[in-house]
């Protein structure tokens, strides 16, 4: 993370006055969008300064929707090399920017107008906030003189977004607005990443200025601790050396902090089994012998056994969400916890940290690696973990004459794609099958809505991921019928931009996770979860201009998967799966992770 920050700040010293524009550009560290030979024209309006700030930060893509109050910014964007992708709905813009940030590691940018534009962005902003994804939202606002008068399309965007942003700013001055954007950009990616927002009144963006924005730089009051306290590192190292039943628990922070390498090295050197959280998927290769895969509500049985019985847990970049911990009383009840996090507020928030290590994940895991002199003697424990892996293996029955099992489709897609393929999902049963039955081996290949659990995330996220991913990385959206229906207008965008995305709708004509809970906890009363009125998604895709495929039985799977992946452009597979298929293992909400149910009658 420190490297990222450094890469966007080298020119900050040169931005002190407006005469150094040329130096700024030539001093650029090779950001892809800049062309060192052309001298940019000086800014004349606040809006041009906003766009200049984005260009200076190396922004290549932005996602958004036009509108009255944001028009000056779009006018300035017209002359910029930044490629703008017009979305069909602002919610799609914020999810796409979020996914762009996850896959690329650089803040994704989304734009919307005031009022409804801004409020439509909010779900995506809240999603990015819960998952600590770097993102910047720019919203239009009514002219300053109308602010507070309930003017047309006015919303108190700052008030609405304060609880769901890392920071937000109401711009008041055309001379300062570009710098506000630069600061927001820097802040989004620095330390614990998160979404930032700048609210842009129309008179400020229309206002005259000749001030070039300052370079991306976080405010002085924002300080990040990079290295953990050496004494606690030493104590934690001693604990690791003496552990009999150690595990590493890798969270989303490992991926955001580019700490996968460091964690892999530490785990393999000391032969420590590794469990991930859902956002931590991809931080450790799931085909490795030490991998115990995902823990928590729908984690694997072996991961939950390892979490429950360990005596030392090295938790990196996780906030101990309740979907991971289950009931606090029974979470790793014998374990001393070494907690690495860049955000001091995560230490002992949900689970008490016996060894709090505040700092950058990669740096601190390296510090810990240097401090550990001897690997723990845990041969018996590792054998136990392997035993659990075979006892609780993820298996399913797939009789040919029954409806298609969703797990089979997920595995078929995994086998047909490369290790670097990016998976995005909506939220629901399909998301859990995508976690459980796809073998992830690389960071930044798993893009999902974890903390907020936003249905409808999958397709717009696939658009953002497609833009950020390399050309040879396939982008597969595994969606549910209910989830897909929420944001499928994004198909029009995928068709217009000819984005090579494969959407697989695991269609059971239910809002399946709710139905599963209703069967388990509400006596099978399917209140409002029966989605028997679903459209035919393959035909709908064709109506949008995408390619449509359909799976009705096992014989269709191989062809549909092969052809959809081969199609150069957006394709949608409407996969009719076993409508009664449920997600197991399952730890009921607030339950004991070690007591996961393998079937409904164990709940």
């Amino acid at each position: 993370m420190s490297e990222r920050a450094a890469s966007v700040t080298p020119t900050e010293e040169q931005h002190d006055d407006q005469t150094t524009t040329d130096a700024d550009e030539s001093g650029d560290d090779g950001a892809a969008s800049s062309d060192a030979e052309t001298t940019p024209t000086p800014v004349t309006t606040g809006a041009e300064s906003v766009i200049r700030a984005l260009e200076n930060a190396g922004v290549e893509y932005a996602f958004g929707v036009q509108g009255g109050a944001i028009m000056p910014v779009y006018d300035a964007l017209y002359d910029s090399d930044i490629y703008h992708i017009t979305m069909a709905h602002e919610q799609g813009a914020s999810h796409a920017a979020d996914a762009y940030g996850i896959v690329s590691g650089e803040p994704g940018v989304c734009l919307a107008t005031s009022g409804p534009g801004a409020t439509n962005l909010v779900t995506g902003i809240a999603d990015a906030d819960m998952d600590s994804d770097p993102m910047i939202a720019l919203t239009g606002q009514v002219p300053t003189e109308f602010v507070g008068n309930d003017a047309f399309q006015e919303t108190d965007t700052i008030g609405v977004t304060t609880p769901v942003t890392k920071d937000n700013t109401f711009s008041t001055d055309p001379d300062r607005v570009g710098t506000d954007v630069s600061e927001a950009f820097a802040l989004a990616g620095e330390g614990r990443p998160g979404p930032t927002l700048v609210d842009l009144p129309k008179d400020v963006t229309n206002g005259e200025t000749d001030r070039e924005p300052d370079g991306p730089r976080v405010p002085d009051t924002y300080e990040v601790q990079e290295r953990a306290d050496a004494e606690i590192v030493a104590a934690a190292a001693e604990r690791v050396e003496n552990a009999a039943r150690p595990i590493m628990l890798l969270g989303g922070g490992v991926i955001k902090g580019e700490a996968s390498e460091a964690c892999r090295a530490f785990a393999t050197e000391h032969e420590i089994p590794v469990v991930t959280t859902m956002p931590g998927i991809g931080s450790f290769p799931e085909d490795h012998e030490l991998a115990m895969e995902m823990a928590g509500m729908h984690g694997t049985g072996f991961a939950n056994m390892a979490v429950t019985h360990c005596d030392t847990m090295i938790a990196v970049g996780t906030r101990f969400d309740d979907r991971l911990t289950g009931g606090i009383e029974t979470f790793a009840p014998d374990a001393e916890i070494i907690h690495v996090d860049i955000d001091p507020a995560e230490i002992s928030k949900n689970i008490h940290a016996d060894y709090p290590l505040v700092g950058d994940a990669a740096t601190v895991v390296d510090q810990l690696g240097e401090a550990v002199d001897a690997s723990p003697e845990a041969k018996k424990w590792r054998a136990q973990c392997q035993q659990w892996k075979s006892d609780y293996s993820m298996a399913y029955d797939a009789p040919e004459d029954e409806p298609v099992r969703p797990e089979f489709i997920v595995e078929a897609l995994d086998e047909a794609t490369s290790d670097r393929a990016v998976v995005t999902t909506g939220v629901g049963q399909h998301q859990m099958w995508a976690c459980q039955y796809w073998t992830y081996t690389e960071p930044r290949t798993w893009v999902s809505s974890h903390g907020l659990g936003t249905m409808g995330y999958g397709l717009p996220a696939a658009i953002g991921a497609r833009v950020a991913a390399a050309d040879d990385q396939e982008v597969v959206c595994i969606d549910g019928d209910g989830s897909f229906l929420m944001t499928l207008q994004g198909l029009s965008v995928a068709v217009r931009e000819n984005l090579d995305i494969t959407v697989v709708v695991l269609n059971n004509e239910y809002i399946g996770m709710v139905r599963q809970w209703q069967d388990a906890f509400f006596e099978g009363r399917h209140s409002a979860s029966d989605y028997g009125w679903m459209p035919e998604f393959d035909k709908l895709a064709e109506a949008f201009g995408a390619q449509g495929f359909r799976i009705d039985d096992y014989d269709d799977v191989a062809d549909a998967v092969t052809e959809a992946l081969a199609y150069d452009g957006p394709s949608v597979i409407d996969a009719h799966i076993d409508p009664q298929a449920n997600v197991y293992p399952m730890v009921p909400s607030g339950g004991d992770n070690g007591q996961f149910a393998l079937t409904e009658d164990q709940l």
Partner: protein
Amino acid sequence: MKRGLEGPPPEERPTPAGRRNKQGIRIDPEIEATHDPRRTVISVLVEHEPGVLAEASGLFSRRQFNIESLTVGPTTADDRARITLVVEEPDPGIDQIKKQLRKLVPVISVRELASDAMRRELALVKVDAERPDQVAAVADMYDAKTVDSSPETATFEITGARQKIDAAIETFGQFGIREISRTGTTALARGTDETAGRDPATAVSSADAANQSHEYTQTPTDD
């Protein structure tokens, strides 16, 4: 209907004996440490900009921390303001409040004041003045200043620690109180100790340390 996933069912699995309490701290179920709430004063130095008070107070309501009182005012620097909060929470909650406040970008420093810090609040008390001599005597007793008097009422200004104001109000009660208006607590550290300074330990806070040794700080009394 067999569904594939196998392995011993829940009742046949080993279960560890250990437990954690609600704060996620490993406990000996025999001697569980208690977390009594304590009242404390937190002083927050912030950038003096619009929205900062809403941001700080919004954080409290969102995270379900109860604010006993909140005051805000300017400092010697034009671009800085000081927020003084009184909260009553168990130690881990107080700790979390401080950490969450520190995360806000316009927050410059957060400090929990020592129990000997100077704390003051102000109250205006309007009482019936049928017995002016006795009212004056009570006012004298609490160093209350008369700010208004009429044939029917007398209004006093009382400053001091919370307990003193509570006591004064109780005593004035015998004459019949018409109205009261109270401010929250404002506070400064004693001597050369700087109120605006940073809390020395950010990684391991006092509550973290106390949790580990199962010791909890005594509730300090207001001066």
